[in-house]
């Protein structure tokens, strides 16, 4: 059984209101050196089976990621 990490970030051309809000808030707190903030998701799960990475990709295609707005990345840890 493997622990798999899926990261799912807003695609570069998609508006990322959360990233923008975080950037503004950080600046407001005096962190002027923060830039190009993006906020996405990180999904961790156990996958049982011979090909956890392949299974995770299938899960992304079936449900976990929306390719119109997100880029995903799978990593087995």
């Amino acid at each position, binding site marked *: 059984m493997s622990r798999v990490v899926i990261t799912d970030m*807003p695609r570069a051309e*998609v*508006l990322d*209101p*959360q990233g*923008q*809000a975080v950037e503004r808030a950080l600046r407001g707190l005096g962190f002027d050196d923060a830039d190009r903030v993006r906020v996405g998701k990180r999904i961790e799960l156990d996958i049982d089976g011979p090909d956890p990475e392949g299974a995770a990709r299938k899960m992304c295609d*079936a*449900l*976990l990621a*929306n390719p*119109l*707005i997100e880029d995903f990345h799978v990593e087995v840890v």
Partner: protein
Amino acid sequence: MSVAVVRFPGTLDHVSALAAVTGIGGQAQYAWHADDELPQGTSAVLLPGGFSYGDHLRPGAIASRSPIMAAVRRHAEAGGRVLGICNGFQMLCESGLLPGALIDNDSLSFICHQADLEVVDDSTPWTGDAGAGDTLSIPIKHHGGAWFGDAEAARVVLRYHGENPNGSVERVAGLANATGNVMGLMPHPEEACDPLLGSTDGRALVKGLVA
């Protein structure tokens, strides 16, 4: 001949959606997300608003993969009418029946207020007698209602009039597929069907299900 109002876990507006259909003289019955088929005699489908599956992952994402949605797709592909309201609109985009995606409001807050919508395209069955440029007063209530996509390529039916409340591309409030039989919008026409609630402008959209 009846409108199937589909219920998912976390659907909230099925009662008011059903009442809106019967209120204009239509017939309606509930359909259940886990079923593979729409109820016997379904003539049109209404995907009502709510927080199906708690809006987890992405609003509408989990619901759009439910068994019933395969039947909704078949219905739509055969030319049947489908109206998705709010969470229902999010499901239609997630399932690819409508273009684009709905992302968080630019304010990152939930917003609930009456909104003026401008009719952009009056040639679909969804705006009744209203002509292009007319405005409809219908409430909006959502957290993830900013439409993102290619507005040039889409058949935009309704646009927010005046200030953009949520950051939608081109102020898109609702759109249809190319053939016009599938329509989705973030505003809630089922809550604008009764003079006691301040507006009856929502009836035009609901009529699109029974006309």
